[in-house]
């Protein structure tokens, strides 16, 4: 990098990429926080959402907001179905069994999706204006602002939902001690389904924005961002909602700086290396509290 402008420009690119990771990581971290399940299918639910948005825009000719709402509703229903059929029966099984099921669901969505829509990529129409902004030589576009603002708004919304609403309290109670919550009159099944519904709806929103921002979608589009969002969630402290936001942004900026210094082929390795270092030094993530294990 030759100048401070270039460095700042790379930071802006990083923020823009990071807000996408953050968007996906929000749902990931919420589901983990409540259900303690690494939902590997989250990235694929995002893909389903992206396709729903695409159908809504290109086939039904919906405008942007109804389209994203449509995608979120369909994905929420899909999320509930997945939870009820695949995850619920395993609530008391080992973690590894639940993880394998999540992998199964992930593969099912990817290849089932390929069967339905074909392997080829589809292009998203331009929904946002292609306005470019140039502030002191630093360039960004309208879509960048939309992504960052959406991620921030959704983060705040989610945070307040989990912290201050009734369903949020039920979620936290179920997460803390499922049986005690049941005894206190919390409908744990509904609460967990609601968690999946919200998480999937968030993934769908991320998917539609992802499709619009990058123009193209395909059935395997969820794998890489899903993995990256997962890294982001762990980085920020898995289960902690503001942590996912910060984790996403940190990851985005890191990746963009690594590429900016000319080591783009090592980008993913650096992301995973940071993940491992964070885990070893502070396993609960940047924002997590260290809990001692009870004997």
């Amino acid at each position, binding site marked *: 990098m030759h100048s401070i402008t270039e460095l700042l420009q790379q930071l802006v690119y990083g923020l823009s990429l990071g807000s996408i990771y953050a968007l996906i990581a929000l749902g990931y971290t919420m589901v983990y926080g409540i259900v*303690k399940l*690494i939902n590997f299918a989250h990235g694929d639910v995002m893909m389903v959402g992206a396709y729903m948005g695409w159908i809504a825009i290109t086939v039904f000719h919906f405008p942007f907001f109804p389209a994203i709402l449509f995608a979120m509703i369909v994905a929420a229903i899909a999320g509930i179905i997945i939870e009820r059929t*695949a995850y619920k*029966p*395993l609530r008391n*099984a*080992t*973690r*590894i*069994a*639940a*993880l*394998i*099921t999540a*992998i*199964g*669901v*992930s*593969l*099912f969505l*990817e*290849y*089932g999706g*390929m*069967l339905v829509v074909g392997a080829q990529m589809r292009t998203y129409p331009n929904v946002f204006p292609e306005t470019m902004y140039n502030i002191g030589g630093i360039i960004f576009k309208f879509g960048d602002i939309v992504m960052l603002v959406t991620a921030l708004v959704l983060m705040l919304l989610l945070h307040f939902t989990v912290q201050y609403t009734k369903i949020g309290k039920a979620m936290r109670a179920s997460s803390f001690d499922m049986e005690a919550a049941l005894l206190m009159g919390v409908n744990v099944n509904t609460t967990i389904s609601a968690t999946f519904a919200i998480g999937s709806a968030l993934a769908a929103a991320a998917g539609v924005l992802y499709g619009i921002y990058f123009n193209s979608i395909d059935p395997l589009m969820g794998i890489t961002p899903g*993995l990256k969002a*997962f*890294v982001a969630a*762990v980085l920020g402290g*898995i289960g902690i909602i503001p942590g996912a936001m910060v984790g996403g942004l940190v990851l985005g900026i890191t990746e963009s700086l690594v590429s900016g210094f000319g080591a783009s*082929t*090592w980008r*993913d*390795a650096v992301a*995973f*290396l940071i*993940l*491992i270092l964070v*885990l*070893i030094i502070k*396993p609960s993530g940047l924002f997590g509290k260290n809990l001692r*294990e009870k*004997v």
Partner: protein
Amino acid sequence: MKRVSILNRKNALTLFLVIVMYAVIQGLIVTDILPPLYTSTLIQVCVYVILAASLNLINGITGQFSIGHAGFMAIGAYLAGIVSVKFHGPLFLSLLVGGIVAAVAGFIVGLPTLRLRGDYLAIATLGLGQIVMIIFQNIDYFGGAAGMQVGRHINWSWAFWVTIISLVVIHNFVNSTHGRACISVRENEIAAEAMGVNTTKYKVLAFTLGAFFAGVAGGIYSNYMYFIQPTTFNFLTSFNILVMVVLGGLGSMTGSILGALIMTVLNVALSGIPSLRMVITALLLIIMMLFRPSGLMGTKEFNLNFLEKKGERNVA
């Protein structure tokens, strides 16, 4: 002295069966009765049996949730390939080098990461596996992302006997003092530590041994396949090995073998319907977990104990 105690009726029978099975298949191959596709499937079964058994040692026996096994397979595959292709080394040396380098890598990464528990260890090993893949993509000596041509240096006899030796070593390790210590780590790490078991040592030991055999399996793979690419060893391959272990039953060695067999054969059997293959595999996985989350074998082993006289029967 020891040989006498090994040569009981059951072991003799087992050895006999192993030899018969080898002889039958070898005979079918030599006489060209067994179609090449089946021979190649059998060799892949060998590769995945070793991989599943070695991952079972880490995940099932020692209870350490590792999902980056393909990384060690990659190290073994590439190093063995280099020995075979660039140095024209003998096959035995090729497999050994692959295994040893993978073991060293397993030791180095295991030491710090095995402090982690549960999901966190899983995530860390997933990341490690991906890092290994990216390293191979970036080193031109190994052919970079485009891959490396290896050529076929291994046959059924080699694959079979290497598999048998690996299984015997892993089985004996599990039933030794060290293996018992590993099981105690799985059952309750804190209690094991309180009883004076050096838990870190046994975790790293199991991890290193598991990595060694994953490396050997990788060596067989690369010496059998004509061409290897870093992306072959991505996290989906790690998942695939994990699925074999869980399908068979975590902690059951015979279960791992069964899991590897089922998944490999299923993969070949469904190759005629490519668009449905992955969907069917995924559905089978989900259904299996829903109805039998402990896997086909649970933690039980299939054995020949029922052939023993009642008085001789041992507690499993």
